């Protein structure tokens, strides 16, 4: 086998102990961030849609 082929076949990542836990952690963060963006957007929309309060008429 040529040295290029030998190098391409190497895969040390099978020995990583963090691959799956890191993926999970990143996905949880991603979902939490998306949720907080959604909540912020809702706040913005709600704020934009609130009618201006009328001042009570002065007697």
């Amino acid at each position: 086998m040529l040295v290029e082929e030998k190098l391409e076949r190497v895969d040390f990542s099978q020995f990583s102990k963090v691959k799956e836990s890191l993926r999970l952690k990143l996905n949880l963060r991603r979902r939490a961030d998306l949720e907080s963006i959604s909540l912020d957007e809702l706040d913005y929309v709600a704020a934009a849609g609130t009618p201006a309060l009328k001042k009570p008429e002065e007697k």
Partner: protein
Amino acid sequence: MEVAANYYNELAQKALYDEDAFNELYEYFFPRVYNFIFARLKNPDAADDIVSTTFMKMYESLSRYNPERAAFSTWLFRIALNCMADFFRRKEYSNETEWEDFFDPAAPEYHEPEAKALADEDNAELLKALDKLTDKERRIVELKYLSGVGNKEIAEILGITANNVGVVLHGALKKLKKILGEN
């Protein structure tokens, strides 16, 4: 290679909002980044440490990734290089002793599964041969063959020309073949 680079550039932009895109990006790049880091450190705990930092930083900056400025692979491997540099600065790291322990059946590390993989003759021979290259030769070979990065992206990652990558790669392969006794 250009088509593949564009595909992953677009996938990276989708990955912030789309879990399938994120998982596909992660699945593709995790082994490539890990191989690159591990080949240098030959220590799975340190490699886990650095690969975790790399992907955390990748995620934190993903919203600012701009495909007009660089391919995603270029951007990600630059993060990995910076994380490795930080690691070496933080510690008085010497891989000499730990590397040799993997070859010593008397050392406790020898019995770890990853040590056995390293002790696999082919892998051990390859890693020892890589140790004999210059830093530049080694980085280029590792990015090209252990991480599957194209010459153009390698040039961008290392701040050199694609032509220089080709020339250095040619010389490095010749050296490796001589070291490994290949004709």
